[in-house]
């Protein structure tokens, strides 16, 4: 049938099915409940399992259980629900199991509001749970990109045996756009006989597998953490993903923005161009690992006088941008939080004000 018109949340659900994930556990919360609504209809049609737990804590451990068995599994939630899942996410990372978490962010802190926000950036990229671990974090800017990222997320989670997060704001979940689905992923979870507790009957080897995050021996725990560290360093080398906009010209200012916020920035950049003011943009598509070299290279362009970080949070991405720019250009911030998405006019004014 070709393209269909889908809400981001529905498309995320369908993309998971296309990625071969037939296990979905979730608890409703605005603005992501449509994922569960959609999958509660769709998963039974494809012999999948949707189970609504009694809380986010419960579903996050259902995810751990399925992941430990080597099954493709995912869950979706929004900010306060993700906070509740953070304990299990730490356990899953500690036990080195692959799983996909989708956070359709709403305004915070606390119950906050139900409108779009990007205020969980620090949580997702630096500190989602206790212990030395990181998530690979992908940030889609369109419904189509959300589909592609969900389908990439499962193989990546398996490649690193680590949780992957899709970090979308409320708009990504709620807006409708035409989408096209790639063919169903053919790949199977890799090497699961080496680690998954999928039953001796299923396994070719005689090895007994144990999934755990408990290492009482300090030397063993240190060694385990070094293994994890090496994994995150490999991510930093191999999983850099970003998009450039208007960077072929001699721009005076460089914007760094991600998710739907970057689409407002694009409109602002087009409108500023019409006024003869050139602005370039780097849009991280994977926010952890952060595309440091790309931001540095774009900032070091001779014509570029300033770098502006634009986001729907109170400047959570600024330190990643500053770290990348390494002091060669001043870094400024503009943003709004709480559900009001800045308009292209407001972004234009903010860019002009920074430049002056």
């Amino acid at each position: 049938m070709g393209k269909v018109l889908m809400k981001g949340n529905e498309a995320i659900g369908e993309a998971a099915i296309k990625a071969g994930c037939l296990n979905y556990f979730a608890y409703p919360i605005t603005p992501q409940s449509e994922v569960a609504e959609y999958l509660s209809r769709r998963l039974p049609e494809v012999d999948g399992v949707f189970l609504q737990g009694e809380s986010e804590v419960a579903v996050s451990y259902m995810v751990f259980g399925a992941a430990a068995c080597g099954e493709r599994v995912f869950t979706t939630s929004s900010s306060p629900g993700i906070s509740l899942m953070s304990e299990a996410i730490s356990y899953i990372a500690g036990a080195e199991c692959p799983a996909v978490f989708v956070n359709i962010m709403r305004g915070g802190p606390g119950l906050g509001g139900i409108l779009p926000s990007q205020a969980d950036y620090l949580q997702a990229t630096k500190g989602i749970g206790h212990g030395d671990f990181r998530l690979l974090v992908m940030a889609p800017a369109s419904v189509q990109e959300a589909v592609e990222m969900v389908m990439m997320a499962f193989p990546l989670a398996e490649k690193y045996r680590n949780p992957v997060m899709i970090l979308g704001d409320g708009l990504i979940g709620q807006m409708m756009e035409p989408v096209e689905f790639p063919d169903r992923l053919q790949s199977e979870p890799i090497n699961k006989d080496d680690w998954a507790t999928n039953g001796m009957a299923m396994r070719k080897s005689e090895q007994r597998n144990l999934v755990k995050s408990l290492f009482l021996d300090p030397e063993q725990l240190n060694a385990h953490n070094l293994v994890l560290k090496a994994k995150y360093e490999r991510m930093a080398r191999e999983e850099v993903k970003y998009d450039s906009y208007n960077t072929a010209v001699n721009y005076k200012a460089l914007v760094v923005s991600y998710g739907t916020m970057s689409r407002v920035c694009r409109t602002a950049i087009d409108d500023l161009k019409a006024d003869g003011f050139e602005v370039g943009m780097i849009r991280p598509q994977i926010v952890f690992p952060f595309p440091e070299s790309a931001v540095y290279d774009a900032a070091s362009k001779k014509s570029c006088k300033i770098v502006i970080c634009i986001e729907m949070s109170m400047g959570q991405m600024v330190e990643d941008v500053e770290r990348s720019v390494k002091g060669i250009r001043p870094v400024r911030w503009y943003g709004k939080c709480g559900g009001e998405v800045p308009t292209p006019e407001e972004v234009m004014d903010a860019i002009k004000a920074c430049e002056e």
Partner: protein
Amino acid sequence: MTLRCDGVVVIVGNYGSGKTEVSVNLAVNQRGIGQNVRIADLDLVNPYFRTREAKTPLAALGIGMILPPDQFLQADLPILSPSIAGLIRQPFGLTILDVGGDDVGATVLSSLSDSFQANSFLEGDKELRVFQVINPFRPFTETVQGCLKIRDEIEKASRMKITGFIGNANLIDETTAEHIDRGYDFVKRVSEKTRLPFEFMTVAEDLLPQVDIKQFECPVLPIKRQLVPPWKKAVSLKR
């Protein structure tokens, strides 16, 4: 073929079929031919992209809007303004009820059934019509059977009968004349199968010159898109 609606028009349909965009544009269109128009936002299930987003431009055209109190406008609470029952009981001109999606969204109508029954339009002088919006490019309504299933579910939840269909075939910005033609044929099949009228077909205003609307056996409602993401501008409703 001119589009003219009177009485109470209830707009239902599956989730994301375009009920709000249709309701807002129908209100503007009917106001344009001199009707008194009021529109009530009955979407209690989805907090994003609701009629309330078009509040200011609609008010400027003199279209009455019935919304929950201001302090609850951004809440995901099921608040039904008590004035809605009143406006159903005493309709004038055209009253449009923009209902939430699917059977879940339509459940609110059953709580208003006393008001619908008390209404004089049941005695024949005013009309009560319930239109199902169909976009065949949406999941679950890409087949005639899918549309009929949703119709049954909505009828059950709302305790009302659907009286006609609105064709709203679109892929937003990527809609072509071919999509409109395919969508028209599809909704026509739904209409033939159910023997219920095909009330009207929507076409985005900028696409109108490319569509041969003379071949359509129903009126066309031109759409000026109002529910846009923040990086786009709504089409001006000024005449």
